[in-house]
């Protein structure tokens, strides 16, 4: 067998060995990635928010709204009502003043007429009648005013009370507001923690899962490419010639003859290959043993075993 052929065969075996090693490594890597992907997938599917977190997310906007609205609304309503009532009392008081002015005008007119004539006497009678009616009306209004004054006093007291309450409520409101702010800060912190929790447990795992899947698929594609190149290398040289790359020439020749024998015996291909591989392994073991024995040979020693 010439040296060029031997070199080529050795090169072929070198390729095969490298590709096989690559395949093994990539396969192992793919297996590792597959395991990792399974772990991340399990983590993501088992992810769920705790009950308190769900409650927090649902209630957060409502809590803030309620806390800001309720503090000021009620006292303002009360104050407006009282102010309206006081305005009414003031109107009543103004009407009374007007009636009183008219009565005094009527009194003056009667005096003037009393001193003039008989026809004037009749007119005086009418006017006095009118005056007595106005006085009755005035008395009624006075009663009303008294009542109104009592009401106004009462309302003023109520207003004072209400304003005190308002002040109190405003101060309470500011207190509550600060409490609300504190609570809002607390809620914000809780929300932040929740987001961190989600990011750590969900987004990061999701990212890792994607990464593992990409690596898995790339390794599968690389493995396929290597496998195809390995298959393409197959059959480029005869089997026996390929053996001579790792075995001495005589051993390769022995295997070639064995190969011919198996062919003639028409053994199934798998059995044929199995037998040939077994014999090749045996030969390899024998050669290793021989090399080992030869290593311990001393120079000029002709009596090896004696």
């Amino acid at each position: 067998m010439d040296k060029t052929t031997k070199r080529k065969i050795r090169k072929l075996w070198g390729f095969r060995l490298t590709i096989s090693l690559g395949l093994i490594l990539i396969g192992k890597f793919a297996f590792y990635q597959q395991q990792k992907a399974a772990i991340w997938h399990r983590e993501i599917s088992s992810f769920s928010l705790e009950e308190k977190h769900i409650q927090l997310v649902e209630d957060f906007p409502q809590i803030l709204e309620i806390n800001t609205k309720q503090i000021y609304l009620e006292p303002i309503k009360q104050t407006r009502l009282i102010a309206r009532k006081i305005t009414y009392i003031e109107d009543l008081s103004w009407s009374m003043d007007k009636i009183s002015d008219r009565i005094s005008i009527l009194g003056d007119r009667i005096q003037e007429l009393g001193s003039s004539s008989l026809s004037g006497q009749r007119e005086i009678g009418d006017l006095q009648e009118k005056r007595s009616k106005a006085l009755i009306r005035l008395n009624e209004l006075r009663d009303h005013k008294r009542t109104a004054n009592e009401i106004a006093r009462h309302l003023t007291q109520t207003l004072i009370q209400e304003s005190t309450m308002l002040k109190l409520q405003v101060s309470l409101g500011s207190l509550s507001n600060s409490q609300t702010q504190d609570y809002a800060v607390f809620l914000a912190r809780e929300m932040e923690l929740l987001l961190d929790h989600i990011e750590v447990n969900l987004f990061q795992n999701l990212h890792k899962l994607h990464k593992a899947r990409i690596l898995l698929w790339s390794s599968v594609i690389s493995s396929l490419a290597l496998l195809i190149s390995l298959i393409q290398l197959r059959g480029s040289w005869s089997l026996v010639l390929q053996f001579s790359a790792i075995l001495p020439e005589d051993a390769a020749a022995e295997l070639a003859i064995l190969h011919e024998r198996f062919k003639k015996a028409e053994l199934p291909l798998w059995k044929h290959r199995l037998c040939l591989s077994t014999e090749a392994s045996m030969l390899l073991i024998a050669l290793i043993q021989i090399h080992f024995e030869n290593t311990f040979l001393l120079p000029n020693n002709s009596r090896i075993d004696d």
Partner: protein
Amino acid sequence: MSPRLKQEPHEASPKPVKLSAIDEDVLTVLMGRELYGLEILDQLNLDRPTGKLLFSSLYPALNRLEKRGLVKWRWGDEVEKSGGARRKYFKVSGQGAKSLQAVQQYRARLQTNAQPI
């Protein structure tokens, strides 16, 4: 499988070397003829009572015999049957023949002495 120490066989050496059972078998098969590895194995495994011999036993035995000068070998011609690789043909050297003869004679004497008195 070239030997690291290749000695010329001691044709004139009077003292035969010790032989193991497998060495003796291989020498017996090779006596008077020239065979390559697979043929030797075929011959050895014909009616072997103690189990089939494999290349892993034959090759170290041949290497040992060759180192001790009990067998000689030569390269055969390149044949298509062996995929262009040459075979190695082994034959017994003079020293090998002498050693085997010595062992066989010793066995014969043992047999004679072992006959009932």
